[in-house]
């Protein structure tokens, strides 16, 4: 009997009576309502008490409240920022936005590098080479046992031991390594370069579409047309041609030692580098464990079937095991990404200007502690809730359709 809509046996049957709430302790619905009222009431009372105290204290102390300070001129200097900033003109609001950009910068680069390193180490842990397996196991074990803050301080003081700018290590006359960071030549960005990047994007899309077309041809006729000439043309020749057609500008801004430090060129500061190094090395250990357990969760039969088909280890891993392992890997991997983003807040200990560091300076300068900390929490909550929302969507998207 599949259809329940017009089941003749149910016509005229009695429907269960609607539960009417009775004002008696023996009625479960009444008890549930009373308990909820009591518990929510207690929590609300506590919140009212704390907020009342805070308000009373703030007004009694004549402390300024509100977010008006976001419009005030900051005056605080910031070491590195992705957008132009002038302490005499720009506001606290802009300074905090720079903090958010710095946080995102170190988080995104950290996530990419940690994933690459973590995957390599995770796969290395399962390799047949005993030395490699033991070494990666030792790496994962040790680095998960040392606090991240200690690792950051260690890397930061290690980077202090690089030579002074006047005795910097150099590669040619272009790249310098000193305790002020890595100095690289910076390309003077012109419109021709933007067009070339656009052409590269177009080429990437074209390659992807050509790949799809090749796959359809292979499924239809059994013959797969060669991809690499088209890819070469689209990804390399096209952008170069566009760049050459627009005048082929190629001017480098070279770092040069003037007085105390190098002027010009791009910099990777020791604070950024130490933070990145610490975060990547620490998170890669966790990601390695996740990747390893994900690969091990794929049943051995898949490996054996692959070997029966004559495939070698590499192709089995890439084409058969990893896609299945991804389903197990992605949720804990996403929470590790979240951890990395939250751990980047430790930048305040080594002087990298992320949002916590700048909000900390702001709340010291303006005296408004409540607003400053609320700002930090709002920023991180937004980031983590959006990553969680993405993860929930992804989980639903790849969830196994079960009976």
């Amino acid at each position, binding site marked *: 009997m599949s259809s329940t809509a017009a089941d003749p046996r149910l016509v005229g049957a009695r429907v269960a009576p609607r539960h009417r709430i009775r004002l008696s302790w023996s009625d479960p619905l009444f008890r549930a309502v009373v308990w909820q009222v009591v518990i929510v009431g207690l929590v609300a009372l506590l919140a009212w008490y704390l907020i009342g105290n805070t308000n009373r204290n703030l007004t009694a102390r004549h402390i300024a409240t509100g977010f008006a300070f976001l419009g005030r001129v900051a005056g605080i200097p910031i*070491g590195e920022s992705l957008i132009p900033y002038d302490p005499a003109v720009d506001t606290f609001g802009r300074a905090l936005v720079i903090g958010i950009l710095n946080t995102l910068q170190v988080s995104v680069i950290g996530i990419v590098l940690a994933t690459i390193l973590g995957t390599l180490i995770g796969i290395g842990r399962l390799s047949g080479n005993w030395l490699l397996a033991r070494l990666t196991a030792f790496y994962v074990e040790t680095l998960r046992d040392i606090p991240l803050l200690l690792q950051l301080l260690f890397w930061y003081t290690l980077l202090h031991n690089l030579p002074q700018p006047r005795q910097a290590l150099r590669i040619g006359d272009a790249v310098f390594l000193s305790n002020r960071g890595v100095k690289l030549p910076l390309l003077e960005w012109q419109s021709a370069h933007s067009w070339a990047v656009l052409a590269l994007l177009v080429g990437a899309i074209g390659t992807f579409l050509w790949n799809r077309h090749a796959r359809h041809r292979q499924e239809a006729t059994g013959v797969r047309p060669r991809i690499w000439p088209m890819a070469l043309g689209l990804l390399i020749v096209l952008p170069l041609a566009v760049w050459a057609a627009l005048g082929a500008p190629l001017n480098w801004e070279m770092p040069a030692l*003037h007085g105390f430090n190098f002027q010009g060129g791009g910099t990777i500061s020791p604070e950024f580098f130490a933070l990145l190094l610490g975060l990547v090395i620490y998170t890669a250990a966790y990601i390695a464990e996740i990747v390893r357990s994900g690969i091990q969760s794929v049943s051995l039969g898949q490996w054996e079937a692959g070997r029966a088909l004559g495939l070698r280890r590499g192709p089995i891993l890439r084409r058969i095991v990893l896609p299945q392992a991804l389903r197990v890997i992605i949720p804990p991997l996403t929470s590790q990404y979240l951890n990395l983003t939250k751990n980047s807040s430790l930048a305040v200990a080594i002087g990298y200007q992320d949002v916590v560091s700048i909000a900390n300076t702001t709340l010291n300068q303006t005296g408004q502690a409540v607003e400053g900390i609320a700002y930090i929490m709002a920023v991180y909550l937004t980031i983590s809730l959006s990553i969680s929302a993405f993860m929930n969507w992804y989980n639903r998207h790849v969830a196994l359709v079960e009976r």
Partner: protein
Amino acid sequence: MRQSIVVCVGALFASLLQAASPLPAAAQGSGSATLDAIRARGQLLCGTAGVTPGFSLPDSQGVMRGLDADSCRAVAAAALGDATKIKFVPTTVQNRFTALQSGEVDMLSRTTTWTLAREGNLGLEFAWVNFYDGTGFLVKKSAGVKSAKELDGATVCVAPGSTTELADADFFRINNMKFTPILIQDLAELQGAFLSGRCDAYSTDSSQLATFRFSQGPKAEEFVLLPDIISKEPLGEMVRKGDDKWFDVVRWTAIAMVTAEEKGVTSQNVDTFMDSKDPDIRRLLGLEGDMGKALGLDNKWAYNVIKQVGNFGEMWDRSITPMGVPRGINNLWTKGGLQYAPPIR
């Protein structure tokens, strides 16, 4: 079951109300809530840094020494009659103002610069300046720099949240120079960055630069304090707004110490002045007039201060002079400095 719930909820309420027991309200004799609380507690809570040589740093026995520490001891002697009835609460740059705002400390003596923004926004006010200072730069001698105007392009170690970073930003902008700030909250880490060569210069109040250089011991010769002072940093004692009587106590305690130095009264010879004919000294030591009562204190308030802590000059000689910092503008007005005591009359 129901009764136990009611009992639990009732107990929770009762404990909440208990925890909310307020201070004894204002106007209980002296007219100052803070002073009454201090007397009830029997101890002055003084907010200091605890890490600054010459201003507040514990010695090897754990006793807090320095100019800020002694300023607080003077207030304890005035309010409670005993300079040892004091507890030093360590505060960081981050929580110093909230500690004072919330009542965790009674006064802040923590090399804090007196600025309009702080008086206007924080609900706190400055009672007296115990050190007229300015922002300076400390560089390594090997850098070969003779003046702050040669620091174009330099990397400067600065503590975040201080007036120093604002002063440095203004200085470099006005002189069309560029600088890279290194802002680390932890003072030891910041100083380590300077010592290891990460920064070319270390910038803070020049008195603290001098004491830092001194504390390096035999290596002090490797550092040179640049002569330029790029901003005014009057370092003062802070109290909460709204308690005027307490403000008066803190301020006039400091003034009494300056008056004592003007008059030549020290902790060693104060007893010999007890039969002095000088009306200023007689009023100071409580032999005539009711100066103490006007403040809500005992008439021997200034005598206790001078006897147990000393006058302003003694305080200086104990803490700052051994570090090689000259009195300069911190001298008495009669000797070309800025310390000028309004009359106690």
